[in-house]
């Protein structure tokens, strides 16, 4: 008897949720066959059979199980059922009487009779105007019984009255974590938000001019994300408190910028990290963003890829947000919110001109970041974006640099 325990899946993870059993108790499993999918606070994992044998599961879908706890047993002494798998099964399957195997299967399989209603059920359905095809029959081979028809009636009447159905669903592990951490961030930090606006014309001009060449040279599209990440890195290095963690009575400063990017994934919001973003080129940042966003969409992000950011960028603009206040992702101290780009009437050099404007918001923990730093940080980001050459000079005026001032 081989015991299968929940493996350690990452630092700080103490429990997982069984999200789906791919095999059930009594099934004969082959080595390396997928047994079940587990879900932690941050990611989904697969658990495979370590040996072949008959499976006994411990725990149901939705159960929370601690790391190291027994989740299944495999009876490795059990015989591989005849006709079940790889080696020489086909001959054996043929020998068993045809009619017999058919009958066994019929209880679970859809047959010619599935969905056919008996006389009483047929009348009830006709009167309720329900097509038998819309109903899953509970009778033998999926036949629609009288009670199926009666129940179908109830369901439809409730639907017909302006859809006031309530649906209760268990929170996923990810959602529970998100909820706990957001409340903690709100309650345990002195969070406030500062705003600014960015004239996006210089970047857009630059993009329009070079995007084809950029793609040709680097193999990735030139987006806004790289400019923002780069601008943030410049500002972070100038205002280290924004890039710091508060740890009890100590402040931990980072001399690198690990920028977390908030991505909307099928199972919820995930924040993969771009490591050492300060030392990456625009092209490197773009390809890293592409890679991480793709993995997020496919639920393939590893735990490592999602932990340890020092600052977060979130882009509500993709959903059409004009302005909103992001919430800090602890233990980080600040988060930059990007928004949509809208053509607005602005005054430049005494003239009213139309410019593509993006409002930006920086939420920060006032306990370690002063107003001067937060506002200065955001202004620096704004300057770098409105004058992308500054990204080359780490924010210093190139002319001053030239003159050695």
């Amino acid at each position, binding site marked *: 008897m081989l015991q299968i325990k929940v493996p350690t899946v990452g630092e700080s993870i103490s429990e997982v949720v069984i999200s789906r059993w791919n095999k059930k108790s009594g099934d004969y499993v082959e080595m390396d066959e997928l047994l079940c999918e587990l879900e932690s606070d941050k990611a989904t994992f697969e658990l495979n059979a370590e040996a072949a044998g008959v499976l006994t599961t411990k725990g149901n879908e939705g159960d929370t199980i601690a790391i190291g706890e027994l989740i299944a047993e495999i009876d490795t002494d059990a015989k591989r059922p005849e006709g079940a798998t790889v080696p020489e099964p086909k001959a054996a399957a043929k020998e068993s009487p*045809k009619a017999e195997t058919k*009958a066994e299967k019929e209880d679970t399989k859809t047959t*010619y*009779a599935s969905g056919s209603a008996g006389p009483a059920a*047929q009348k009830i359905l006709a009167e309720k105007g329900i097509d038998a095809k819309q109903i899953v029959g509970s009778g033998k081979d999926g036949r629609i019984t009288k009670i199926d028809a009666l129940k179908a009636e109830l369901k439809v009447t409730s639907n017909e009255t302006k859809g006031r159905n309530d649906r209760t669903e268990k929170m996923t592990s990810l959602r529970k974590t998100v909820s706990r951490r957001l409340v903690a961030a709100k309650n345990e930090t002195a969070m406030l938000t500062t705003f600014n606006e960015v004239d996006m014309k210089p970047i857009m001009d630059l993009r329009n001019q070079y995007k084809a060449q950029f793609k040709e040279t680097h193999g990735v599209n030139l987006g806004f994300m790289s400019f923002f990440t780069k601008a943030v890195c410049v500002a972070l290095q100038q205002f280290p408190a924004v890039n710091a963690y508060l740890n009890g009575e100590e402040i931990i400063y980072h001399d690198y910028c690990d920028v977390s990017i908030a991505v909307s994934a099928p199972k919820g919001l995930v924040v993969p990290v771009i490591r050492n973003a300060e030392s990456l080129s625009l092209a490197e940042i773009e390809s890293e963003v592409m890679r991480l966003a793709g993995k997020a969409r496919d639920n393939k992000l590893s735990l490592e890829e999602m932990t340890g950011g020092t600052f977060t960028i979130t882009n509500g603009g993709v959903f059409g947000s004009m302005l909103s206040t992001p919430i800090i992702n602890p233990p980080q101290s600040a988060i930059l919110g990007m928004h949509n780009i809208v053509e607005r009437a602005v005054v430049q050099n005494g003239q009213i001109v139309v410019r593509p404007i993006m409002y930006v918001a920086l939420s920060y923990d006032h306990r370690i970041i002063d107003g001067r730093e937060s506002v200065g940080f955001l202004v620096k980001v704004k300057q770098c974006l409105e004058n992308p050459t500054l990204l080359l000079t780490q924010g210093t005026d190139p002319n001053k640099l030239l003159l050695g001032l």
Partner: protein
Amino acid sequence: MKYDVTVIGSGPGGYVAAIRCAQLGFKTALIEKYSTLGGTCLNVGCIPSKALLDSSEHYHNATHTFKTHGIDIEGVQVNLQQMIERKNGVVKITCDGIDFLMKKNKIDVYKGLGSFVNKNTILVSGETEQQIETDKVIIATGSKPSTLPGLAIDKTRIITSTEALKMTEIPKHLIIIGGGVIGLELGSVYARLGSKISVIEYTNTIIPTMDGTLSKELQRSLRKLGFEFFFNHKVKTATNNGGDVTVIADNEKGEEVSFSGDYCLVSVGRKPFTSGLNLEAAGVKLDERGRIETNAHLETNIPGIYAIGDVVKGAMLAHKAEEEGVFVAETMAGQKPHINYNLIPGVVYTWPEVAGVGATEEELKKSGKKYKMGSFPMRALGRARASMDIDGLVKILADEETDEVLGVHMIGPRVADLIAEAVVAMEFRASAEDIARMSHAHPTYAEAVKEAALAATGNRAIHM
């Protein structure tokens, strides 16, 4: 008086419709032109013929099988008058039962001929004349025996089923024109009582709408009883010569042949009966075969007027009429009932009995559907041997691919009752294997159904 529903005709279609209407809260009237309720079925059809069939079967057993059973009796005599009396008693009790049911359901019964004044007014002409107002009407006037051109029914020697149920003597030679259900049942009665029976049939088989195996098996059994069959014969005339009857027909070669007997039963089918209804006053249309034309809801061309049973299209069977009576009543109440016409069983009360439901093998062959066939003979059953009723078989036709039962055909003792199992199975779209896997009590005739189902499933009957 004003009614929600008026039913014209009190046969199994009409009186059942009336009861269902009353159950559904309609104020209901029932009109019957004869003195007793129940229509053809109760008075001159199903019930009296079964009474005589049972009586004659007892006589047949007393003279043929008792000896083998170890019962010696001398001087067994037919008392035809008593037989007819008993039959009349059975009919009376049954008809009185309908009277009781009408009272119980508070249905007003009007005795007299019902005819339309307009679509909402019915004139009842009985001992007195009265008009009743009605919101809706159900026409259930049934059918009458039909005849052939050149055949004048005189009701003395050239008779219909009605007269055959009240004979004063046992025919020496009964000539039966038509090899359908009625002729064979009544022929069986008199064959058992000693008559010579000659069946003259236009087609090449008896009970032509049923599965071919059944008609072949039944022919064999009836021949043993003394039936003689003349197929492909076209009857031209029948003449009452006073003391006997001469029937002239063309045989299969077109030669004229003559039959002589003391009675001639004309049983060539029945025709819908609508005369006296004055349908024109309501505007109700008939089809080209004299049936009342109805739509899928059994409503006529005049909204609010429905028709059911023998007077509309479909098999002329009491149980079909009953289903239609319920169907119409429920339809009028806004419900949506359904009748599966394919699953109305056909039954013949000869001995052995014959019954079938669903598709016949001939129909399946014609449609090109792939099917499997399993059959099982009654003689292989312990129950059949114990009672010496060994004629017959059960035959099950199932879809070759899905195993769904498509038709069940039986001939044997009490198969008119056994067919109910097949109807239930088919209403729920059972497979042959489903039936084969259900426990059937032992020893019974029903075991033949299970065995035939095993045979149809995979040629694995146990007792063969």
